[in-house]
């Protein structure tokens, strides 16, 4: 196990170095830079600014400077926002995380419950209806569901707020503030859950169907165990095993923000910030954020592997 971990960690470092170079050069190669989009500025002033920002240095030198600072924990100042990149992350990521963690949790719970039931009652009317509903939810674009819910629930019925994270101008604190945020996050969470629940339910359903047909389930039933024990102790546990690998992959998604959902619901998350910084070629922010996601992805896969080993000792690392 420990030799495996050391090996994995060395690989991870190599992967991240490779990824950082690739990402840096990709961004450097996209046409335009931070000053080129400003039509009002004279060419001389643009050249001066490129010099001040260090944008006129060779790409590789810029990469080395970035890497050196990053290793010292300095991810630079966002050019467009005029703030340290890490401060910006701290201001926006937690909002995205809040939406993601709640909707991921709901997605998993709903997917497991529905997946198990519809597998157990395969081809029943419940199974059919659920499958139709799930495919429908999966195939409708997020912006459509989002706007539809805003129109009906927020504008027409006025049950829920149309967007934002709290009532504008509100001075609520403590419990009142928590309630306000829950009120505001309901719609985006519902949409995110609707979109995510489909594929996961199908995944659990098919896993469960496979497991139910195994010999050990027949054995368990033959032993005279209650159906409940068979289903939840013997079948579900085995059906959940492959899903553990998915847990690790959810990690970057939890912090990455959702560009479309955040835009529709006016949610102050990192996804929107990232999109804007791409439009303005705010390199420090772009690099910082993409690398952050890269690190999470790599860590996520490691966690998956370790979890898989812990859950199923047959899997050797």
């Amino acid at each position: 196990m420990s030799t495996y971990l050391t090996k994995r960690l060395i690989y991870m470092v190599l992967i991240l170095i490779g990824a950082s170079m690739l990402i840096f050069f990709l961004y450097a190669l996209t046409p335009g830079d931070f000053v080129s989009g400003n039509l009002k500025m004279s060419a001389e002033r643009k050249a001066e600014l490129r010099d001040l920002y260090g944008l006129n240095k060779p790409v590789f030198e810029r990469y080395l400077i970035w890497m050196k600072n990053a290793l010292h924990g300095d991810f630079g100042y966002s050019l467009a926002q005029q703030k340290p990149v890490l401060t910006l992350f701290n201001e926006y990521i937690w909002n995205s995380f809040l939406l993601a963690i709640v909707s991921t949790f709901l997605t998993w719970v709903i997917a497991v419950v529905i997946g198990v039931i519809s597998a157990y009652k395969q081809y029943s009317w419940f199974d059919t209806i659920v499958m139709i509903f799930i495919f429908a939810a999966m195939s409708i674009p997020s912006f459509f569901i989002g706007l539809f819910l805003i129109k009906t629930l927020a504008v027409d019925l006025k049950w829920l707020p149309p967007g934002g994270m709290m009532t504008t101008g509100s001075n609520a604190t403590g419990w009142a503030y928590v309630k306000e945020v829950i009120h505001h996050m309901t719609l985006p969470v519902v949409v995110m859950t609707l979109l995510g629940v489909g594929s996961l339910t199908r995944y659990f359903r098919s896993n469960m169907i496979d497991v139910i047909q195994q010999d050990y389930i027949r054995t368990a039933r033959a032993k005279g165990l209650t159906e409940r024990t068979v289903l939840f102790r013997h079948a579900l546990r085995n059906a959940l095993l492959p899903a553990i690998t998915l847990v690790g992959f959810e990690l970057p998604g939890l912090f990455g923000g959702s560009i479309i959902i955040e835009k529709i619901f006016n949610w102050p998350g990192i996804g929107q910030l990232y999109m804007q910084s791409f439009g303005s070629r705010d390199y420090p922010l772009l690099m910082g954020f993409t690398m952050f996601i890269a690190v999470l992805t790599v860590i996520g896969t490691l966690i998956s592997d370790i979890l898989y080993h812990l859950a199923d000792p047959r899997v050797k690392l």
Partner: protein
Amino acid sequence: MKKGLFSLLTVIISGALLLSACSQQSSTPAAEGNAASTTTTTTDQATTETSSGLTELLKATDISKLPELAQKRTDTVIVGLTDPSGAFTPYFQQSGYDGNVSSLLYSSLVTVDNSGVPIPDLAESFDISDDQLTYTFHLRKDSKFSDGSPLTADDVAFTWTILHDKAYDGGYDLLSAHIKGGEAYKEGKAKTIEGIKVIDPQTISVTLDKVNATALLTLGSEVLSKAYYGKDYKFGQLDYIKNLHATPVGNGPYKLEKFIPGQEVRFVANENYYKGKVKIEHFIYKTTEGDTFQFVETGEQDFGGFQATTDNIDRLKKIGFLNLQPYTASNYGYLQFNMEHETLKDKAVRQALTYGLDRKTIYVDSNQGAAAIANIPTPQSSWSYTEDGINPYNYDPEKAKQLLDEAGWKEGSDGIREKDGKKLKIHFIGSKKKGTDVFIAVAKENYAAIGVQLEAEQFADFNSQIAKFESGDFDLVSFSTPILTDPSDGVISFVNGEVKGYNNPKIKELYDKGLATNDIEARKAVYKELYQVINEDAPYIFTSYGKSVYAYNGRIEGFNLNPFRGLSTSIPEWTLK
């Protein structure tokens, strides 16, 4: 290693997806909000519908429909703003949205009236010497910053000085005013700027190297407190200002109360404002991206800007509690020719392509009347606007054909004109948006009718379009200008080499003449002549002035929109009924 490779791939793929999902950078001015998307209609429908368009303020029909949420706010007004980032120090901010915030926090020495003529604001008055090289600003005796400290000529001198620092990396170009000794200071050859003289605490004068009609507005902008922003200042060292962005000390109608990133900027009235404390105690800029209709309709926001399409106006009218104010933007859209290409060096060809384009269908009718046709490089709201002696280039395919025939472009066997074996093809580049789609569809047909082939290329990302533009690989490119305050802003691209391949000495001469005096009547005459020359030369096909409609709660009074300064000059005058 297999897993490792996989994770690397995931990173790359997600990166690529993000790249492709990128939408175009919005260049619309902040306070206008994001206009709702429009639906295309056929010409017939649109002409009947435009009759219901707005020409003047339409009062709310039923104020009782105002949602409870808005009624409960008795001392607060909420306006949407796309994306303030938190850098609230004027001159040191990169985003125009931060500019909207700081224009409530800081007043300018000089502002402009509704037709763009400079008038005093924070300065009580200003005089210009007879040789038009020395400007003297007289400050108010009792001016104060929001922290209660006095505002003096030293603060003005300090502000002008740091904008000459070699480390200044913002977008404000004070050097364009050519203050005497300014260059020397920037190069570190002088300790102070020679041309700036503090006469007494309320009087400051500045001498320029050459006469420049835009200098008054360039010099007369916001004033930073020397005591606050200058206590750590050393030449070549401005980084410390970044730490002060979040805690502005200003002199405007409002003070910053709280900034919640991505959500709100809260203001509270500044009791030290020189015009006295404003009537509405609290003001909030709410961060809203995209269509703000739902926030205006539910009363979460008191104001919204929309594209003035018939659909939008009808929808807004139905809400009942909104006052609707039509508004034409102070910028213009244009299609620029690449005059480094042999074909387009010929004025006749450029004129033919202007006559041959049905601009009314493309810009006015397909937008349900939310635009007016432009023919000169200045907004309709400007004092320099004229239609006298200006060719409107009304859609006239026959005239276009005749011009092309005369220029030697003869129709080939495939219907496309040729000259010396070269086909008349136009390579168009533009952004990826609905308006461009309409342009391409109509222009292709229009140009095919006069024997010209149009090839179009669209870019989802503004910077990519700029890069293509700079590479010179295009014939025609679509752009729009930022808000234009001085008429010289709208024509500078014709003289500074930005419009490549276009070189008319007459333009340069008139441009300089237009800046060589501060007398507006004299300037009017110069710009009129300049516009006539440009209109004849057709280096651009001028396209349109965008029309918006501003919708605000009927309970807000004192709404007076300055087309050059946006909302910021009007907000302090608002009252709540």
